[in-house]
């Protein structure tokens, strides 16, 4: 039994929660970047428990490449009747669940990052190592990461692999902080009592939310993107000097997911507006630096001009 706060009990971190939900519905990746103690990992793990009923397939610091790609099982070689037996790696497991979580992603060794990059980019895993030549496999998964920017930036190539990026901050509002403490102290007391009112309510809320997310995911691909929405998306990307075209593509997919969550069949400008910041913040021209550029009031106002919330497609 893992001591992870149930997702419905997470207070605050609205941007991160929204990004995770949109990403799940649209089958996209998310990077949460922020200072220590902002519940990035907790929120991501809790979300995975909500939608997958299990913790995410996790690539921790110190992971070895045989665990990433797969390798020969040591236990099988050490058995009474030794035999070489291939043990699948984390990328293959992530392909099954659809999500790979990398904690402290900016501290990963470069060669591990390269392995993840290849698989995340192509969805194809080809393994030839230790006398093994395995058939190519298709493993598509959403890359979800968390990092503390104090420990250094992320390589731009890896940053580009995340559809959405959320800058997570401490909750400054005293009422929210009080609610966080109230919830956590109550959870301390009741976490081992599933029948308590507190936990029963969290479980019921989780079921409702899970159902809503699964349904939205099912209908997401059927959500239409009218031509004017595509044009508005391109205009936003151009206005923010976005590098490449992945920004527009992921922004549209995220807007589709947002519309699916709202249970509408056609993407509207408000959906684009809702996902524009996390889709564009990390794609603005910044030489080859992996540091996120500042996003302030001016950027919000520019988005308001290009994607006025009152416009409905």
């Amino acid at each position, binding site marked *: 039994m893992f001591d992870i706060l149930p997702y419905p009990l997470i207070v605050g971190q609205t941007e991160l929660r929204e990004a995770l939900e949109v990403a799940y519905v649209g089958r996209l990746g998310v990077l949460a970047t922020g200072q220590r103690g902002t519940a990035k990992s907790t929120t991501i793990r809790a979300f995975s428990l909500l939608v997958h009923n299990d913790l995410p397939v996790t690539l921790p610091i110190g992971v070895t490449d045989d665990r990433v790609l797969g390798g*020969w099982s040591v236990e099988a070689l050490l058995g009474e009747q030794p035999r*070489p037996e291939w043990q699948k790696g984390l990328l293959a497991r992530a392909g099954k669940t659809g999500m790979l979580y990398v904690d402290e992603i900016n501290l990963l060794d470069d060669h591990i990052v390269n392995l993840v990059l290849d698989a995340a980019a192509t969805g194809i895993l080809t393994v030839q190592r230790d006398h093994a030549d395995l058939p190519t496999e298709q493993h598509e998964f959403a890359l979800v990461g968390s990092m503390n920017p104090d420990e250094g930036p992320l390589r731009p190539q890896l940053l580009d692999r995340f559809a959405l990026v959320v800058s997570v901050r401490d909750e400054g509002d005293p009422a929210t902080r009080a609610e966080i*403490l109230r919830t956590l102290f109550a959870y301390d007391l009741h976490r081992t009592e599933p029948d308590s009112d507190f936990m029963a309510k969290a479980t019921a809320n989780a079921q409702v939310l899970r159902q809503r997310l699964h349904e939205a995911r099912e209908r997401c691909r059927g959500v239409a993107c009218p031509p004017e929405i595509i044009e508005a998306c391109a205009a936003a990307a151009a206005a923010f000097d976005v590098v490449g075209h992945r920004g527009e593509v992921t922004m549209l997919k995220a807007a589709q997911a947002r519309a699916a969550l709202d249970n509408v069949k056609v993407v509207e400008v408000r959906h684009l507006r809702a996902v524009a910041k996390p889709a564009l913040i990390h794609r603005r021209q910044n030489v080859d630096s992996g540091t996120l550029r500042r996003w302030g009031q001016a950027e919000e106002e520019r988005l308001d001009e290009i994607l006025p919330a009152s416009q409905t497609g």
Partner: protein
Amino acid sequence: MAANSPLDLLACAALEPALGGILFIDLDPTLLAAYAEALAAGIEAVEGRAPVPVVLSSWTSEEQLWPHWGLTARRGVLTFAQRPGLLSEEPGRPAPLVVIPDLARVSTGVTRAAVSSIGAGVVHVERQDISVRWPPTARWIAACSRSDIPALSPHLLDRFQVRWDGARAEPLTRPLSDHLRRITSGEGRRRRPEFGGDALEMVLRANTGNASIRRSLALGRLARAVAERRSHPVVTRDDVIDAGELLGLARSTFLDPSALDGPDHPTAPTPSPREREESRDKPIGQPGEEPRQPVGGEQELAEISAPEIVAGGSTDLGYAASLYPEDDPEAVPEAKSLQWNAGGRLPVGRSGGAVIGHESAGDLRDLAVVPTLLRAFWRCRRADGTATRLHIIRDDLRRHRREHRAQRLLVLVLDHTARRDWDCSAGVAASLRWAYEQTAAVSVIEFGHRGAADELRPERYRARSVVDHRIMISFGRPPGIASPLAAAIDMADEELRRFMHRGWAAVHVARLVVVTDGRGNVPLEASADGHVSGRVGREGVDDALAAASGIANLRRVETTVVAPVPQQYRTLPEELALALGGTVTFVHGVEDAP
């Protein structure tokens, strides 16, 4: 009088499993072991099972911490067996009680383990065909010298929110377990106290500064343990105040800020040392203890001296800066704890960079388990393809071949606008020679030259060594006009962190050489946006100085600003060198050389 002895703190720690790490500051070295022993006995009294003490230090390797494969002799033959790590936990087995005698000198593996385990809901290990996860329940106590705290990573400090000043330390005079058994025996442990709204407000009020929410959680959980010791069904304001005192918080911290607006606060006399001593000897937290007067309003002002001084605590509101230096918004500690080779050494068993293959092993270091076993398998395999149980002989042993990575780095920032009619080679020669001798990797960041792809942005390339022909070409570029110095310094900061903080074989030592006259004329935001809007003024210079402050806090980086002997603006290179935490070398131009 509140109960605020080490015994009280340890009793609370035994009762509250989610308290996080406890850090004793400037503690008499002989006391830590005694405190660990008392805490272990306390945990046994509360949970019915004693934890396993584990001492971690500078020589504890990452491999020792987590489950791993080790060579072993079984039934007379050599083979591999999976061994638990020092931090491994299994259901039904006692959890570790981690004791760290000097947190500032602990190995990088331990630091990473602390960051990823303390307060986490799950620990994942994915190493060498071992894939396990468990909910961590280990308790952590550590000691550290006060002078070392500011250099610790905020990431690590965040996991040790309970801090105790060694000046308040004292030997333990009575067993912790007896008192705790009284609380948890009989009808079993009572329901733990709930949190009331008043107490919650007090917890929030204590967090006046820049502290993370983990601090509030630690205070609240400590207060809950205080309440439990007093058999309070609900955590009271007094419980929070007393828990605050355990953390060195002045009682005045908990005053309603509006109550402090008056010109003069009536002050109660500070208790004498004798009174304090007497109060320590009184039984504490006993059921049926007289509840103290509520705190607030006039009563509050009459009872609490403002500010009351607790040894090692704050004489002002909030947490003591000497115990919690990371609260200072200006503090930029050196982020070293999560990087490898902080002490200039590789982790035990590691000899370099990424694994690129394997080779015959001459000793038992850095063994490649699977290649060794495969070799044994091929040797033991019978004609029908099956094999008997593997035994390993010397010829089977394989070790990893690792990519060579430079352990020295030279970052060269070239401002070509400063090189007009000036030869900087005398200023950079020593560093280029050092890079050659040390086979250092080189990163060149250059700007302000004619023909730049974008004159508002610096360009960067990485060379495996200083003999790369591109470096000589860089020294010959004709100067241009724009000087995005701020973006270049920012990029140099990223470059240093990238090479020094990542991976097994991170760079040990780096030199940063900035060739410039300090006259940056492109603000950082203009470099990012790709265009300059309006008058620039000093903005480019100020941005460069601000970007430099991050580099000043990096350890093992030696920084030099090489500048032309100035005709004017002499202070600019000096200001930059100061901000970078380095030195400035003025070099005469070609025409005015002596």
